[in-house]
């Protein structure tokens, strides 16, 4: 299979502007975009920089903007893009460190603000905290998140409000709010009940379209909106 990879290059200490560089490639059938990038790095230009680890869509390192859509490079078949030219750029609207590598610092800082871990107020039981299969199913979709930041990069509200938690962090908040074992739900809702939390979401659905794991963060955020209202109505409860 013959294709041309058009890759966005940028090295801050050398280049004034990012630019696109074309690499005509001969790839095996069923090659992924990541295979193509590897071939460039191994055989054509060793200075090409990109992030990747697991090659099986579970580490969330290789989210990129490929031919006008958000993809993980590792599970996107070149064939499936049905194009002679594969345009690969880093995640839009994030600061580029080099070539396809973007600064994920703001994304992970917001993730930390979302307190992405189970919190309890009662002493731990003798054995583990049990949960029924139905209770577990409440957040089946949300735990598929691999923190690739595709949704974060696709959200117009993130572009315009640097403080906005963003779709991934809010989905994580909902994941714990809907977890039967978590005991600080009201505090979690208080955390997102503001201009830079759930109320910044304008239901544009870009995050859902961008998500390579087919999660719908818009749905989770609207559930949080409802729960924050319910929390305000039950003002006599603490927290």
């Amino acid at each position, binding site marked *: 299979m013959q294709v041309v990879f058009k890759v966005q290059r*940028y090295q801050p200490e050398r*280049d*004034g*502007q*990012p630019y696109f560089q074309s690499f005509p490639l001969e790839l095996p059938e069923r090659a992924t975009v990541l295979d193509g990038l590897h071939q460039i790095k191994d055989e054509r230009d060793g200075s090409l920089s990109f992030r990747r680890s697991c090659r099986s869509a579970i580490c969330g390192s290789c989210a990129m*903007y490929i031919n*006008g*859509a958000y993809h993980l490079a590792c599970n996107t078949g070149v064939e499936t893009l049905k194009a002679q030219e594969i*345009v690969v*750029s880093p995640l*839009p*609207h994030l600061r*580029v460190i080099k070539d396809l590598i973007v600064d994920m610092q703001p994304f992970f800082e917001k993730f930390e603000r979302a307190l992405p871990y189970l919190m309890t107020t009662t002493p731990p039981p003798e054995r583990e905290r049990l949960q029924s299969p139905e209770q577990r199913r409440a957040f089946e979709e949300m735990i598929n998140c691999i923190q690739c930041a595709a949704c974060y990069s*696709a959200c*117009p509200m993130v572009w315009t409000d640097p403080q906005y938690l963003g779709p991934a962090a809010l989905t994580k908040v909902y994941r714990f709010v809907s977890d039967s074992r978590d005991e600080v739900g009201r505090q979690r809702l208080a955390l997102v009940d503001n201009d830079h939390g759930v109320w910044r979401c*304008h*239901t*544009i*659905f*870009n995050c859902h*379209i961008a998500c390579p794991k087919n999660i*719908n963060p*818009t*749905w989770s955020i*609207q*559930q949080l*909106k*409802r729960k924050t209202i319910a929390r305000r109505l039950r003002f006599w409860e603490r927290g």
Partner: protein
Amino acid sequence: MYRVRHTDLWPSHYNLGMWVWLAQRISGIVLVLYLFTHIWVISFSIANRQGQEFNQVMALFQTPLFLSLDLLLLAGVLFHALNGIRVILFDLGIGIRQQKAIFWGVLVIVSAIFAWGVSLWWPFVQGKPLV
């Protein structure tokens, strides 16, 4: 800092939700501007003496240009109102996973009411408005 041309900002890369959101914003701004213009025009036209200016202004609004702008206004109001209901439903947690279907539903209702509006508007074009 360098300037990147983000290719995701090309309209050809927009998703349905993005278009609808933009249309809601733009129609909202246009309607606010229209409202203030409307209040201003009406107030200055009736502020004067024997209603002469009011009649002149009304005559101007019967010209083909303003009559066609009326249709644009009708479409803008209908879209903004009904899509607004769609967004409120989302905020209440209703229909989020059917967002595209709900948008097409909104468009059908907007078109139906618009067609009815056109049937009411047509006599004005012919110069014999309904009483």
